[in-house]
């Protein structure tokens, strides 16, 4: 099915990379031909700007700006990730192009990686771009209320905002990978939308609800850092508290199990890509199985 017989060697590696690059290039062309993504970026910029304007945190520095943006980000970034990813693998499968592609020497994994890379690049442009712009605006405009006294920046620093931007990437990547998995599992566009919305809500709310539930049912409080770290939102929030906002407090920390949170975000990403690959690779067989079951039940 895939190149199981590969014996390694640089020629083989180059061929694989070439295949991924081709898929990547094709997918990027698809993305670039979708003007909606540009609108999405502009809309996100407006939303972030509006949030800061209403919240007022950006007037004085990066840390209060991050405080204002944090909870909005927890909703918006997964949403954008799903918009970018929910059809990524579905369209080719639906239109039969995937079947054509598979006649070329491109492995399923290579295909998935190529698509995900292109989508990830698009996601970065759509999400990190506006956030970076907002950061630039804060940098240019944030100032103390009054200049009659001596001022200093405290711990507030563009570096903290850069940390925040840095955390957006794995957080978004985790959701993008999950979205891609959704697109691989779904068999129709409507189905993809339905599953994506479900996954989005489950991700944004469900993870934390599960933590709350497990605490309510007697989990020990000491388990919180670990439990929190296991969901993408919890891991992201904990890491922002720990490495951005918390810096303004006396050095105590402990908002989340840092290593575990970082690993968790990577695991969600890798897991999403893995599920996508598996779904594309074995989905047809499962479909056949299911269809068989359905036929039998229907009769």
């Amino acid at each position, binding site marked *: 099915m895939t190149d199981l017989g590969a014996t390694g060697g640089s020629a083989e590696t180059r061929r694989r990379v070439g295949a991924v690059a081709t898929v990547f290039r094709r997918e990027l062309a698809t993305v670039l031909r979708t003007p909606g993504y540009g609108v999405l970026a502009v809309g996100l910029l407006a939303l972030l700007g509006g949030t800061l304007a209403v919240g007022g*945190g950006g007037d004085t520095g990066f840390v*209060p700006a991050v405080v204002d943006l944090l909870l909005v980000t927890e909703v918006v970034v997964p949403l954008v990730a799903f918009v970018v990813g929910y059809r990524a693998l579905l369209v080719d499968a639906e239109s039969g192009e995937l079947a054509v592609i598979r006649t070329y020497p491109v492995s399923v994994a290579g295909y998935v990686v190529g698509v995900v890379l292109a989508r990830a690049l698009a996601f970065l442009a759509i999400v990190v771009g506006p956030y970076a712009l907002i950061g630039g605006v804060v940098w240019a405009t944030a100032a103390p*209320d009054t200049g009659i006294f001596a001022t200093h920046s405290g*711990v*507030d620093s563009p570096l903290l905002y850069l940390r925040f931007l840095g955390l957006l990437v794995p957080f978004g990547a985790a959701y993008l990978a999950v979205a891609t998995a959704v697109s691989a599992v779904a068999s129709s566009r409507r189905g993809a939308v339905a599953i994506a919305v479900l996954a989005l809500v489950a991700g944004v709310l469900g993870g934390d609800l599960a933590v709350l539930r497990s605490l309510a049912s007697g989990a020990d409080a000491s388990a919180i850092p670990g439990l929190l770290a296991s969901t993408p939102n919890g891991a992201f929030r904990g890491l922002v508290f720990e490495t951005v906002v918390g*810096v*303004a407090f*006396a050095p105590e920390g402990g908002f989340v199990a840092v290593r575990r949170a970082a690993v968790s975000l990577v695991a969600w990403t890798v897991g999403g890509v893995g599920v996508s690959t598996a779904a594309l690779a074995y989905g047809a067989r499962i479909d056949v199985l299911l269809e068989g079951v359905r036929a039998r039940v229907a009769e």
Partner: protein
Amino acid sequence: MAIIDPYGERFGRVLLAVAVLGVLAGVATAGAYAADPSTATPDPVAYDDAVELGLSSETDELMAGSARIPRVQVFYSQLQYVVGYNGVESFVATLDDGRTERQFGYPLVVYVETFDGGAPGVTDDGLFEAERATEWIPADEAAYVVGSAAHSPAGETVVPFAERSTAAAFAADHGGRVLEWGAVRDRSFAVDSAATVRSMAPARWAEADERIADAMAPGDDGGAGGTGGEDDRGIVVGEDAPTIDAAVAAAPPNATVVVPPGTYEETVTVNESVTIAGDEARVRGDGNGSVITVRAPDVTLSGLSIDGVGNRTRDPEAAREAAEEDGTWDTNIQLGYGHGDAGIRAIDAPGLVVDDVAIETNASGVLLRDGSDAVIRNLRVDGSDDWRDGFMGVTGMESRVTVTDSRFEGGRDGVYLHRADGSVIRNSTFVGNRYGTHLMYTGDALIADNAFRNAEFGGITVMTRPSGNAIVGNDVRDSGAGIQASGTRSYVGYNTLANNGLGFSTSSRGSLYERNVAVGNEVGAHATTVVPSSRVVANDFVGNDRHAEAGPGALRVWADGDRGNYWEGATVGLHEPGERAYRPTAPVDAVLHRETAAAAVRESPAAALLDRLYGTVPGARSGSIVDPAPAPKPYAPGRVAAASDPDSPPIHPDWRRELGGGSRTEESGADTTTPTTTIMNTHERNATDGTVSQAAIAGAGSRADAEGRR
């Protein structure tokens, strides 16, 4: 699209550029994690540019002489302003008060001024003195002398040195021990706070009682005595002497000059310790200069009406002359204000008693200068209709004044005090002044249980930065502003402020604003200081156009632990009252008490997402106020109701019982669940913060219950 055409020739290069950018961004982000922003160490700034907290440097004893308070400047992690503390111990006291770190973050770096080469010493009064400070050095590099003979006006003081050897030399001369920073910061110091001022307010009232009782005691100073063989009636004007002035001139010390009913057209000079006791007598000056001038100690004036006062309000000539020859820091004002005409003018006349006197004047009513410590009771001053035409009801310069049961109508300021530490103004009525009571460089005063109406600018104003004033139980209405008191360590409590332009401002630093009622003002309270350092708690805000607004500066947290203020409207909505933080400066919260629909906006997910973390880094935010624990009901419902009634008589709650009484007293009037105010151990730092007692947790869960046991 030309640049990023995936099938174009240059795509490879574009991709490479993107990849390089990505790597750079990755490296930068990694760098952002590697760098530690908390190790930033800004250099010390000029102290005058720091926002000053701690003790006041504008007290008499400090401005007049060579005494100093060692100063500290602190750079906090969240706060954008550099904070200066007068007194190392003032800063140390903030280290474990729980509030400072909550509001400003932790100190990134602390500098102290050192006195190695500044000829440090101790004044005769026991204050620390030095010719100059030598340099600012990080606090952990200095050596400190603790427990020496040197004190600050508020108590113990710590003297920092750059070299341990000079510190040891100072300790050898003036006692005390040399400690490192680590030991100093762990100590607790006996230093006065606003809570001290609160606990002392009833005592000041009692002291005024004593002053008045002493002044009125018959046969003590002014009472008719057997001196000179006069009979008990004393010298009677019209019988024993033709004029009051002649009678006073003829009278022996401690005699009484009796002034029968009638109008006496003359001016009087008193150079002897006598009592002038009128009986519906009117003294009418010639419209030039002052009517009665007192230049002797222990003079009593009673039962008089005075008019015909000159209309010169100050003397630029005297100001110029004296400024040339001596030029102390406020000569100009003192002489300008202290040398006008007055109904009664007292110069170096301690022990003056003015009782049952009425004065019509377009200049000052009573002018006290040069240590004319006076007791004034039942004084009535009618000033000019327009304040620009008149002057002060009572002008007190370097004189400790006690005013009670008096009435000041019209004119510029009802009572104007300048360097008049320890003065008491109480039980008096002020109508239609510019300012009702106006203090300059005057600390440790008590302004209590007065009523102010229609003051053009404000009821009570304290300017400059004095310390330790208590403003308690006053009722200010229909005025430009209720209370605007700057300074440090002030106590502003139990005042009722209704229908003013502004209820009160929190201009005084390190102060306590509690149990005030602001009803129907345009703005209930205004947060002015750039760096919040005061406690604002248990006040009631009802029916104001805006409950509160804030000037520039860091976010103010108006609560004490889990105990906040009552804001009408804060409980609107479906929440359990007190569950949601209230932000009087936020557009939605600000109108909750006028528009119920605002509650629905407030519960929107968007508002919730923004609000939820709002107060996490208060020091880094600006221009607003948040009360994390708004009270479910008014602390003083009785006063709120009375203040809402325009015809109600002035309201003066029984604050003396609450502040000075037992540990569980209750506010006078309706509210039986009102929390109590426990008298504080003035040197117990925990007494001023919001530590919740264990008992509170065991309680029935009622908020009021928890407060009651604090």
